């Protein structure tokens, strides 16, 4: 199947065979993503059901005599955020597994290395497949938030003339919840932070594994710096009290992380070209 993916992108030009670069990346991406597909579908199905059950359990105690949490607080206290965190961690773990698995068993990495495609294409395809998986999981999380809000609204609208239901509650929850602000930013700075987190997480994990494979010990130090900065950025963005968030610090950390991300890509491609397994 793997070889089939490449022959599809090959054209004849006299005696020499080569692959159109964009087509080869697209083929490789499809090939990589096919490894992800079942896992993604499982993660998302479990995530959607788990958050629905958690929200339903949390809201089921509400009557006209209980104190009503706002939706964003209920969503947090129900533990639904941890479902997403676990989903992302599973995806990260699987990403690491897909990289390592190429070196183990069938040693697919040698097949990749001998393919008539540029090695950057192999790098890009793996990276994009992982990023797309994260985006896919996030999209499902957004669906689960909407479904969760419908469950919440439907339940508390049934008694006391709906007086506990906030008007325009989903919008207010999304701008007020630090978690929802993180996964669905409605401002440019928030968008920049989320994009930075996505880029650094994916390029950083890949870089760390490549460094380990290539026995470049300093890679661990750079990855650790990126890890600390990433942790700081996530902590800043998800701060409850936005007045304590320093815009200068956010931009500084974002620029630092984006630069590191650029370095990761450039050095990873260098390592992949050199073989990364020696």
């Amino acid at each position, binding site marked *: 199947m793997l070889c089939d*993916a490449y022959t*599809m992108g090959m054209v004849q030009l006299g005696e020499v065979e080569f692959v159109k670069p964009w087509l080869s990346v*697209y*083929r490789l*991406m*499809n*090939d990589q*993503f*096919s490894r992800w*597909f079942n896992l*993604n579908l499982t993660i998302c199905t479990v995530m959607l059901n788990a958050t629905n059950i958690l929200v339903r359990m949390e809201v089921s105690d509400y009557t006209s*005599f*209980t*104190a*009503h*949490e*706002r939706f964003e*607080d209920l969503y947090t206290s129900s533990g639904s955020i941890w479902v997403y965190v676990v989903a992302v961690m599973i995806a990260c773990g699987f990403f690491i597994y897909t990289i390592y698995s190429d070196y183990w068993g069938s040693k697919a990495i040698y097949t990749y290395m001998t393919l008539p495609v540029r090695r950057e294409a192999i790098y890009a395809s793996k990276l994009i*497949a992982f990023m*797309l998986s994260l*985006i*896919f999981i*996030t*999209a*499902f999380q*957004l*669906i689960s938030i*909407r479904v969760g809000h419908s469950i919440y609204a439907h339940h508390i609208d049934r008694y006391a003339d709906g*007086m*506990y239901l*906030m*008007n*325009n*509650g*989903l*919008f207010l929850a*999304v*701008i*007020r919840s630090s978690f929802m602000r993180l996964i*669905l930013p*409605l*401002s*440019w*700075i*928030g968008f920049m932070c989320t994009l930075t987190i996505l880029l650094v997480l994916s390029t950083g994990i890949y870089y760390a594994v490549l460094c380990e494979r290539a026995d470049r010990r300093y890679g661990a130090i750079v990855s650790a710096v990126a890890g600390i900065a990433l942790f700081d950025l996530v902590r800043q963005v998800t701060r*409850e*009290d*936005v*007045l304590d*968030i*320093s*815009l200068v610090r*956010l931009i500084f950390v974002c620029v630092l992380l984006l630069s590191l991300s650029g370095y990761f890509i450039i050095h990873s491609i260098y390592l992949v070209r050199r073989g990364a397994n020696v």
Partner: protein
Amino acid sequence: MRHGIAPIAILAILVIGYSAVDLYAAKDEARFELVDRYGDRSAMEGITVRGTLGDILHRSEFEISMDGVRHHTELFDHHEYELSTPINRFDYGYSGQYWVRRNQLGRWVEIWKRGWGEVTVYTGFSVGGNKGREYGNPFEYGLASVGEKDYYVAPTSLHFTGIAAIFELPFGTNREVARQLATISMADNDAERSKGLEILGLEAVGDRLILVLKEDRTNLIIRSYDSTNVERFSEEVLSGTEEYVDQYEAIVDDDGTLHLIFESSANDQQVLTILSLYVGDDMTHMEDARLVIEEGHWHSRDHQLTLRRVDGKLVVVMTLDDRNEDTGPTWFREQTRFMIDVLQDGEVRYRGELLADQNDDFIYMLNSREGGYPVYYRTFDNLSIE
């Protein structure tokens, strides 16, 4: 799987894109509705009330006119939103710009001005008298600013029998001691018989300083000084009514009208007596209006109030606490109302209420026994009348 990635990518992007666009568009779905509570809305003709309702993450600007309410919402990233302080005298932070502290002995006050430093004003003390009871209103009442210059007079009670003085504060100069501009002798004060003068406060209208005095506990004396030459002053004496309490609020119109608001109560209802004075070269007492708050309660510490004269009508816009409702054990419950009153010839012609979502933010408090404020809650702010 030859093309598996394309539909997945399109689906994910569609879901995220739709969520972003849909929720961003929902920012303007908040409720803003004007309902008539008394009188005919035609009294609102030519009057526009503007304001904002928001928390630190988003803010809706609204515009109320006879035709209804228009609104528009902005989202904020990080601390772009700064709440303006409501008129507020009972707090230490006087609009965040000044900070007034009385020395323990009560003979001088220390005034701090943001970005300028601190000065000490020797307010004088009476001979004999009842030490410790010489001060009347909170010290912040004696502070007024004309441009960059600041003035201070210590609010005194009938127990003060010395010489009170209006001082020009030496912020930004090399002088250490505040310059004395005008003096008022209080030597004849007699607290036992409730006779004499009390200083309620100092206000500024244009380049004029307005000294608010009370005579024999009943009459109100409003004295207007030219801040450049305090020898020249005009005076208005308003004969006694019990509604002129010591702690008042002052609002200055941009056309040079000073409104003094005195709070009292009658038949368990709160009454605001609004005294309007035009301050020019001479001072003219324009009208006294009496506003009875039939439902709810206004408190200067918690609520907004602004007013303005438009085409001979006095427009009062304020937020209130809805305390008339039976709140049971949930005494900390917050229900804010937004009222517009149009008064003409001292009488209410129209009363309207803006219905918005501000109380939704306190749903947790409705049945909670823990109290405390939520992290994000919307407040009214930046009120103006045109």
